[in-house]
Structures are given as C-alpha cells and as structure tokens.
C-alpha cells in the first residue's frame, strides 16, 4: 500500500437522499474533514468512473452532494440508497472565502446545478446581521427543475431572493425569464462597491457579468466558479488547464479580474 495515495478513494456512507427533481438528488454523505463551499469531491463508482461534484452543503460530520443524473457515473450513483456508500476522494479546489461577503452589499447569481456550490455561501449570507443587503438571483429551467425548495423558502424570508424560471406552463405565478433580466432592477445602494458571485453554465456566466458591469460592478468585485473536464483534481491529468491556470488547483473559484483573461 502506498503512503497517502491521493487516488485511493475512501468509503462514505449515504446518510440520506433528498429528491429535488426526477434527475437531481442530494446525497447526504458522512464526512468529518475540513471542507468549504465551492470545493468539490471526486465521486467514484468502481468500474464506471469518477465525476467531480461540488459540495452543496456542510454540516457536523456531513457533506451534501447534489447530483444531476447525466451519464455513466451519475446514473450509477442514482442506483445507490441510504445506508449504502459511495467512494469519494477530496475535497479539492479552493472554495469560497465567506469572509469576503460579510460586509456590504452582495449579489449572488446562480443557475441550475450552479446553485450547489454557492448554497453554503447563500446559507451563510442569510444568517448575517445585514442579510437585507444580500441579494440572491436564482434561475432554473422550469418550475419542475427547481432545486433546494425548502432552502428557497427560508432564504426568501431572510434575504432578498429573486427566483425565476426560463419557461413555465400557462398559469405559473412566479418570475419567468433568464437571471440576466433581473440584474438591472436590483435595488442596490452602491454597485461600485458591491460584491457579486456568479455560478452557472458558461453562457449564463458571460451574460450575467455583462449585466453586472452595466449596473456598475467592478470586475475585481466579481467572483466566478468554473467547470471544466477533470480527471484527477490533483493538477496532473491536464484536462482542466486554461492558460497557466489549473482550475482544479487554483480554482474552481476565481476573481473575475483574473478569470476574464481565460482563453480556452
């Protein structure tokens, strides 16, 4: 046995499974080490492969992994039940520095499974004394695709939540439209000093940042989280590299003033 082999996964018990939609479940896993929102684990199903999955929640002796069923590995994860276990390695990456968002106005914009990595940040924002200065804009494809419904209700009471869907059946009472539509109207006192976090699919991030810039945000106050293909999480496999940056090591969370120079 090699000493501290970083490729060797450890078994972690599935303590609970929370179903959000037919294709997205949160697996509550036993985990005791240090971890922060924005970091990720490699979830391993022997003989099927590994998939990088963000930490969507952190608690005493637990981490939540919210997984969308899309392929070889994730399909197999969905065949596992409470009481069984998954193999994990990690956590990897830098994660969010929550301290940055304590004072002043903050806007978090997240789309789809992009909510997972910032869920812990939003949770923390909702518990801050000036939570009324914290704005969260969350978008899902449709009302059926909504994740974290219980959280959304709780957040709506504590901070300024805008919940929207890209499209909805006739008669839907909530907001309809992309997250980008709601940025211009955010009631901010001083956008030039406000901080923002943007996480979601690449086009969503791109257009959200353009809206934030129009609103008066400075690039250096915007934080983004990136996804790339990752086979190791250790700076070896090379797939996640952009310029001289390894997303798995130096990220996935970046200051936009730095990340705006990424050329894929």
């Amino acid at each position: 046995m090699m000493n501290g082999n970083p490729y060797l996964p450890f078994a972690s018990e599935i303590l609970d499974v929370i179903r959000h939609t037919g294709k997205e479940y949160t697996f509550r896993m036993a985990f005791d080490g240090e971890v922060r929102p924005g970091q990720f684990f490699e979830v391993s199903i022997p003989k099927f492969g590994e998939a990088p999955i963000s930490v969507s929640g952190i608690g005493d002796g637990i981490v939540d992994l919210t997984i969308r069923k899309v392929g070889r590995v994730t399909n197999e994860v969905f065949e596992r039940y409470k009481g069984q276990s998954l193999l994990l390695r990690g956590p990897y990456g830098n994660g969010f520095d929550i301290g940055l968002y304590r004072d002043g106005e903050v806007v978090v914009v997240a789309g789809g499974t992009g909510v997972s990595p910032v869920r812990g940040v939003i949770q923390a924002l909702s518990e801050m004394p000036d939570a009324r200065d914290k704005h969260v804009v969350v978008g899902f494809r449709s009302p059926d695709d909504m994740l974290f419904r219980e959280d959304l209700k709780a957040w709506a009471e504590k901070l300024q939540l805008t919940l929207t869907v890209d499209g909805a059946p006739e008669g839907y009472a909530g907001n309809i439209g992309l997250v980008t539509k709601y940025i211009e109207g955010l009631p901010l006192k001083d956008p030039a000093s406000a901080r923002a976090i943007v996480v979601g699919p690449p086009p969503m991030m791109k257009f959200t940042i353009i809206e934030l810039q129009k609103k008066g945000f400075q690039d250096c106050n915007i934080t983004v989280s990136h996804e790339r293909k990752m086979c190791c999480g250790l700076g070896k496999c090379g797939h996640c590299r952009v310029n001289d940056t390894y997303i798995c090591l130096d990220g996935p969370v970046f200051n936009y003033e730095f990340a705006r120079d990424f050329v894929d």
Partner: protein
Amino acid sequence: MGYVMDRAGFAEVIAALLKDYRIFAPVRKKGAGRFTDVDAVIYDEIRDAGEIELELKSDYAPKEFLTPLSETLLYFTEDEVKESDFDERPVLLFGRSCDLHSLRRLDQIYLNNGPARDPFYERRRKAVRCVLIGCGHSYDNCFCVSMGSNRCDDGYVFSVDLIDDRIHSNVLDGSFIKFFSEVPGAEEKDVLPRFVTENDVKVEIPEEVPREIVRSGLWDEYTSRCINCGRCNFVCPTCTCYTMQDVFYSDNGRAGERRRVGASCMVDGYTDVAGGGQYRRKNGERMRFKVLHKISDFKKRFGYQMCVGCGRCDDICPEYISFSNIINKVNAASREVQA
C-alpha cells in the same frame, strides 16, 4: 572515469547490468514509422546490447516507461479497492540529452504541481537511473540548441557514444565503474559525451506572447491542415495529460480496474463536459492551446520552457505541420504587434 571498448565489450557491460537492472532503450521496429514502409524507433525493454538503437533518433520518448500509454492504477473486486503492483527492480533508461531534460518537465507535473505527488509516477521515477546517448550530429527537425537542452552535464550514470564502431562511455556514477573496468580490452580514457552546438532548425521564442497573438488568425490555417490525430502529443517527451478510464471485466462483471490512458489536447473529447459542452472545437484553437503551453503557459507557471526541441512532433505529423515553424511565426507576429 571514461572507457572505450568494442561492441563485444559493451555487450558484456549490458549483460552484467541486466542482472541487476531492467533496461529500457530505443529499439528499431519494422514498419511502425510515420508510414507503414518506414521503421520506427520505439522504447522497449531490452535483453541484449544489440537491440539498443544508438544511431537513430527515437520516434517515441522515454516517457513510454515513466508514463505508459495505458497504466492500471487500481483493481476493483466486489468490495475491495487495491493498488496495482509494480516491479520494483531498478531501471536503466536510455535517452538523449533532450530526453533527459524532458524528465524535469514530467517531474514538474507529476511530482510538483499541486499539493500531492503522484505515487504511480513516483514509484517508476524512483526506480530510474538515466543513461545518456550522446549526439554526434543533429537530426531532422531538432532545435535543442535553441531550447538549451542540447547538453547534459549530470543526471546520468554513464554515457554511450558509438564512434567508429567503438563505444565511448563517461561513467559519472562511481558505483557503475565496476561494470566497465573489468571488461577485457576496455581502455581507460577521458571521455565526454558528444553534444551538438548547432541545429539547422532554430527557433526564437518571444519573452511574452502578446494577447493579440492568442486571438489572432494565425491559428486558422491549422483548422484545415491538422487532422487532430494527436500523434504530436503521443511522441512528445513533455506531454503528460491522461484520461481516467474504468472498465469491468467481461467474464466477471463484478471485478474491474481503473486505468489512466495517455490523452491528447488535439483529439476530440479532451474537453467534453456533460450535456455536450466542449471547448476548442476547432483544430486551430487546439493548436494554439498546445503551442502556447509549450512555449509560454508552462513557463509562466514554472519558470522554464516546456518544449525541449526534440522535433519529434514534426517527425511524426502526417500532415507535415512543423512546430518549429509555428514558433517562428508566433515570434514574427509578436514582434509585429510589439513594434
């Protein structure tokens, strides 16, 4: 300490070494070259000094031993995960100066990028001692002098130069002297491994590649010329990328393994993410990504150039795309921008 001997003497040295070492060296393989009527020089484990190719430049690089094209990392059974075994016997790895310089690049990624060392690489690396093959002349497409990798003053246990049918060896590591000194007819002599001081191909690399070049049309011609076969990556002594691959055994679906296989940033699938996402769809963009890694991005992170100028990527390309030409184009375009 230097020794000069005939081939029979050298065969004795190798025979003696084979008792303690596994030896991996360039060997000639029929019909495995760029085209099927061309021989290739590949890396293989040898059993006899006669197999070692000392004259031709190898088409493949010593990473064939250190990072095999496919390597099993873990074995899975019903409820057990087991690390793969490894033959721990020491290894002698033959290579030219550029090849020995390439090992620092491999070490950089596998041992020193990020907080963890790669134990599967490290166990191979630790077993390796290098043998330097001297270069009596430059080969096609070599530009090692421009890259500063034309010469090795250390990092090898002994050197081998074949000159007029005699083997000249400089033995740097004292513990290897015994293998040479006892060979009948071996002359003790000062020997310095040969190295080249000039190549036909020269490159100039801009100190910094301006952003305009990154986005420029210079790369477009490769979108049509390059057929993204990835061979340039597979022969490159400094390319390290791999993809993880799990398999289960067809005769026993409950058991299987996790391997890593060599990956190429030129080949489809390298950037694929779930839901059909893909970066760098065009071959021109992939060429930009590869070239700038070799001559700019790696250096920004680690302080020295990745490319060692071996020219193997040019030797192998079925479309006759020349990497050194691209470097010089980037240089000329960079100057234009900066002027």
